[in-house]
């Protein structure tokens, strides 16, 4: 329904407008930029952050790139390790039962504890941040992939073998497409978790980055800057999660035809 999707887009755009409006009104009512800065002030501050080097001598671009770099590195490492472990668990009952005892435990440990431990043991450094992320995300991915490996359609694999398909071909055309939904759902959740952990780790102890700036301005009681950096972060993550992933997902799942939403 043409009218339907226009209406949908309209309502959604409208909600953003209303949000900004309500914010602006609330800020006017409160009248204290220490408590609730208005959207314009925040926009100005954000622009300023990009143009001039901040208190650390680096502009926003530097911090953002640093955080993004950490996120992608940690995310990639966790996904790869998690997929590998998940596949091994799928093929070996021994590994499966051994790890299934440990993984739920790891998934219960609160993130903040993991971050503290990682930072204390591996230093206030990139290594600490990386370990913190991997300790939380890898088990989750492993379990997900393991479920996918278990659910694989044995008959399709038999068919491949019956046609004397080579291993690599089997992997590419039979295993991977069936694993893709699991990889993808793990992907999205892992990414979400990763950037939250990186933000937390940066707050506590990594040098520079978006989380570092959160904390810096928090200690200065600078509400405008704290909000500015939060907005920058949220917008960045929204763009990544919904822009990037939505697109990747529809390409990866083209073979499912109309079923995929």
């Amino acid at each position, binding site marked *: 329904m043409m009218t339907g999707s226009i209406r949908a887009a309209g309502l959604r755009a409208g909600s953003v407008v209303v949000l900004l409006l309500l914010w602006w009104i609330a800020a006017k009512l409160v009248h204290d930029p220490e408590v609730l800065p208005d959207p314009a002030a925040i926009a100005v501050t954000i622009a300023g952050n990009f143009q001039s080097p901040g208190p650390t001598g680096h502009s926003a671009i530097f911090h953002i790139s640093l955080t993004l770099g950490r996120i992608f590195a940690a995310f990639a490492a966790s996904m790869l390790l998690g997929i590998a472990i998940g596949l091994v668990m799928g093929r070996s009952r021994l590994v499966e039962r051994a790890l299934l005892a440990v993984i739920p435990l790891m998934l219960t440990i609160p993130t*903040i504890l993991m971050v503290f431990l990682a930072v204390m043991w591996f230093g206030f450094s990139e290594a600490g941040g990386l370990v913190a992320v991997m300790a939380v995300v890898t088990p989750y991915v492993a379990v997900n992939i393991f479920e996918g490996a278990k659910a694989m359609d044995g008959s399709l694999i038999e068919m491949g073998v019956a046609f004397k398909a080579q291993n690599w071909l089997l992997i590419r055309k039979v295993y991977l497409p069936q694993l893709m939904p699991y990889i993808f759902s793990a992907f999205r959740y892992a990414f979400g978790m990763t950037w939250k952990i990186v933000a937390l780790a940066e707050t506590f102890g990594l040098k520079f980055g978006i989380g570092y700036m959160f904390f810096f301005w928090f200690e200065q009681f600078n509400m405008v800057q704290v909000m500015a950096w939060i907005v920058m972060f949220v917008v960045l993550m929204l763009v990544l999660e919904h822009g990037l992933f939505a697109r990747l997902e529809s390409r990866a799942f083209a073979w499912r035809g109309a079923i995929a939403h």
Partner: protein
Amino acid sequence: MTSVEPSEIRLSPGLLTIAAGLVAWQALSLFFPPVIFPGPWTLLQRMAAIYSDPASYAVVAQTLRRIFEGFAIAMVAGTAFGLLMGLKRDVELFFDTWIMVLLTVPAVCWAFLSVLWFGISDIAPILTIVLIVFPFVVINIWEGTKAMDKDLMEMGSVYRADRSLMFRKVIIPQLMPYIFSSLRIALSLSWKIALVAEAFGAGDGIGQKLINWFQDTRVDMMLAWGVSFMIVMVLVDVLAFRLWARRMFDWRPQLAT
């Protein structure tokens, strides 16, 4: 291979891993000072020290209170809002961007904002919990409403059931599995977020203990508080939910998981 005796079967690989893990842990810890890398025995000793001090229980109680308050508010508001979004398309379209944004803000940011707004107090952790958990519950319940059986709604309409009756007998029962899973997820999230929030802005509570010991570089004390709390929350999850689940779903023949 020789036949396996029944008594041997109980030593599953899982148990063996845990046992082996404990032994390896204890062995490894001998190489480090206990304040950096405590072994299981040290940990137990620290926990005993903590819980033989009556003041500790007040600390735990504070944290538990905040968790349950935040959790309760998030569940009630989240369920109501999720229902609203599921049943009214316009509400869904309007608010889904707001929900998305809420999902994207990390807990630590809310914690900072709450402290800047309300100072060191109870509000920071409770508000943070609500703002993080609420969107999760909304999405869960909203998914539940999408999965509802339209045929049954139609049947209710035909018999002219009013809103209240539809909710009580048709809508809520279909949502129970979703409400239930929301409860579990919400509680699990709530206690973890309570710790983060308390670390920054509560002045007391377990989260505060964690960050204090972190700053004092005392891994042993930090783990003692953290691990003991984890055990409590896991017990709550098992007792509250596994037992309750069994009673809830006995109208389903042999399907209860």
